[in-house]
């Protein structure tokens, strides 16, 4: 592809976020969302294979539908403002619709079906951007929508996501589908955090981004798309395999890694606000997903695959800079980091 593509579209994606964060009218928010989506779509199809194109198309359809619902919700909101007497029938249906569209954009249960197919179809790097950056616009809108009336829906959907994401990944051997389900589960925790407080939600999001980037990148380096390949990776590239293993343990929420602290803070704040049912459901979901995280970590770190002489040591592939090394370190030094972040969320 042309070298001008990625800067242009990257700029567009960045400006979409700025647009969303700085606008006061819902039309411009919608504009920003659409801009971000449309700028991202071509970058997904970078590799032109049929699988990727199919995933791109699916993504586009779902996002377009979500944008349409968003616009409809906005219209409903506007109409209830300007047409008197309508609000007693409709209530805050507009806000609910907008929230549904955001949920669809993010990929939360029960609007999550596309996440699995899209992430499976894409390679790791676009998938990573999809699961991390493309949530930012959605989350920006979501935190403005959270209120007393909407909180219950979000909580229910969040708890259900955690459980559903856990169950879905149990039978998976494809790593990308596994990561998709894990993302759904983490999103559940995220929106539960948002229900409690904005700072908590954004903290959880930052933690999730920071610890999933090394996982995706090192899986890309190892080129492991299937569980069996993970098993053999300890021999070929031990460092990368260890990072993936540790990363998965961190995603699972095991102390002392960083993922634990996100979950811990969310739980603490939920219980401080007496939302015990949600907390219990989230924990059960995390427990179910623990199985497949542990399975992957076990394959990466604990057992030794069959030693093959023909496996080439892939030491030539770059590590994409010291940023990644820093992220890896952050995973392990979660203790030090979260102390600072948790004081932010107060």
């Amino acid at each position: 592809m042309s070298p001008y593509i990625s800067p242009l579209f990257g700029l567009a994606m960045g400006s979409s976020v700025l647009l969303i964060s700085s606008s006061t009218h819902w039309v411009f928010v919608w504009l920003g969302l659409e801009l971000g989506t449309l700028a991202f779509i071509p970058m997904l199809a970078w590799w032109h294979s049929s699988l990727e194109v199919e995933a791109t198309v699916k993504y586009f359809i779902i996002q377009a539908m979500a944008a349409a619902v968003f616009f409809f919700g906005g219209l409903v909101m506007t109409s209830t403002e300007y047409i008197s007497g309508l609000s007693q029938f409709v209530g805050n249906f507009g806000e609910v619709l907008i929230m549904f569209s955001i949920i669809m954009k993010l990929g939360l249960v029960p609007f999550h079906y596309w996440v699995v197919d899209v992430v499976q179809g894409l390679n790791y790097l676009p998938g990573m951007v999809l699961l991390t950056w493309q949530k930012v616009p959605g989350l920006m809108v979501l935190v403005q929508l959270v209120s007393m009336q909407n909180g219950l829906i979000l909580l229910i959907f969040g708890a259900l996501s955690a459980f559903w994401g856990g169950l879905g990944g149990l039978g998976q051997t494809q790593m990308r589908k596994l990561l998709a389900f894990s993302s759904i589960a983490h999103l559940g925790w995220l929106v539960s955090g948002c229900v409690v407080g904005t700072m908590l939600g954004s903290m959880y999001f930052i933690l999730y981004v920071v610890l999933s980037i090394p996982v995706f990148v090192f899986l890309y380096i190892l080129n492991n798309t299937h569980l069996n390949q993970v098993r053999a990776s300890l021999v070929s590239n031990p460092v990368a395999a260890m990072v993936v293993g540790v990363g998965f343990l961190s995603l699972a929420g095991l102390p002392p890694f960083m993922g634990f602290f996100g979950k811990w803070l969310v739980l603490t704040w939920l219980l401080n606000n007496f939302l015990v049912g949600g907390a219990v459901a989230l924990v059960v979901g995390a427990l179910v997903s623990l199985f497949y995280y542990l399975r992957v970590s076990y394959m990466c770190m604990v057992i030794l695959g069959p030693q093959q002489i023909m496996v080439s040591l892939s030491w030539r592939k770059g590590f994409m800079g010291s940023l990644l090394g820093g992220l890896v370190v952050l995973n392990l030094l979660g203790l030090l980091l979260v102390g600072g972040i948790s004081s932010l969320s107060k």
Partner: protein
Amino acid sequence: MVGMCGMLSLTSLLLMIVYLFSKSKSDIAQAIKYSGYLNSILLLLLLMNDESEMLFLKWEWVKLGGYSLTVSFRYDIYTCCFFVVALYVTWNILMFSFYYMASDPRVELFCKYLGLFLVAMLLLVSAESLFQLLIGWEGVGIMSYLLISWWYARSDANTAALQAIFYNRVGDIGLIVMLVWSLVNIYDWTFTSLYALSLVNIFFLGGVVLAATGKSAQLGLHPWLPAAMEGPTPVSSLLHSSTMVVAGVFLLIRFSSLIQLDSLIQMVVFLLGTMTTLFSAICALAQNDMKKVVAFSTASQLGLMVTAVGAGVPQLAFLHICMHAFFKAMLFMCSGGYIHGLQNEQDVRKMGGFMNAAPVTTVCLFIGSAALMGTPYLAGFFSKDPIIEAINVSNMNSWAIGLVLLATSFTAAYSFRLLYMASGSTSRMLVLQPMNEDYGNLVGPLQRLCYGSIIAGVGFVYFFSPLQANILSLPITLKLSALFVTVVGALIAWNVMKLLHEGGEVNLNYLSFEAQVGFYSIIMHKVMPKAWMNLGEGYQMQVLDRGWTELVLPQGLGENYKLLADNVNQAQTSLIKMYIAIMMLVMFVVGLLVVNF
């Protein structure tokens, strides 16, 4: 004066410990002999000094905050008498073991073990602090284990030693309860502070009784004593007749003033002793192993001592300890002489007619048995008869008193049976046995203990003023009851034996109640452990641990989640239309719900 005596005794103890490290066995024997002389001098001096009370020597050893562990010794009349008797008997047994274990390559070690045992026993009896008592208690337990399993290549010896350890350990629970209770309630472990109590907890006294039951082989924890006959004869005669098994009774004697405060415990002690006496006497009637007969006889006499404590005459119990040491050690040594002469044949059904083959030993056997039965004016009489008189006039359970008298008659019965089978009847041994008693180390100790059995009674009663007044006025039937039942038992036994064994047949019924020692061993060692094991392995392990608890939580949940995961993955049909349809539906439904509420 008294201080000097105490120092002398302690010096002798220390010297004995030093001599334990020497290489030669005769050194150990000499050390014990001279220590015995020294201690008898001490005893004499203590007697001449009219204050026949106690003496304490105390060194602080470890400081534990508010309390400090001390090494403290108490020298009252019990300790001093016991020292003399124990040292005398041990010296004789050591000389005997030179004869008995002469062909054993590790005989030096054996003598060292015996010496170590003696040190532990003397620590036990001279202990003022309960902790020191515990040290001595455990010490004699360990030495008993090592000595019973002397011939450790023999599996029976090993199991017997383990049995001794187990049953003693159960008794040790009582001792630990004692220590804990006294530490928690009176913050002190000395006898002095315990005697000052006016009200004692039932746990404490229960612990004392349990400890005595374990160590002195009372009914309930008794199987280890006959099993301990696996050890060599010197071991049996030192540990399991004179010295170690009386440790439990000694404890009871020490605490007798406290036991008399609680009538329930006193009754328990009395009944325990009674039942032990009778049970052991019954079992002794049916044993065919000579050493086992003497072992059960020991158990029966121990029961009698415990009964004496229960009846309120502890000093008579102590007197019986001292007298019993003499003649029981001698009885064991006689059996040792027979066994050695018959090339390690212990079955009385293969003995007979030793009156002619080994006259000195037989005479000593007879005198020992006579002393055991309480023949007037021999050693046993001065302790056994007053005990039975005291039991007769006490207001305890009269059925129990009857049982004690029955047991006394059985004493005579089994003694005469033993005499008949071993030395009286026709000879049933193999023809060319090297039956020889012309050993100085056999005859010497036998003679010395024989003299002891004859005159010790007179000596003790003459020199020591009784600590508690004996009851001297009794109706003549009660006074002569012990003698009467003994004579009756002896006559019946002798005649029955003659009738039963006219043709030289022997009793082969080994499954009877008395031959199986009341089936106690089978029940406790086989039936009950098997029941527990069935419960543990069969029920808990197979049904629960590998069955239901596995299925309900770990595996069961796994299966359920697998099904749910299948459902979740079936929803991922990869058809966009399906996805959109579901999403629309959900949106519609949830939207309606939200709007209406």
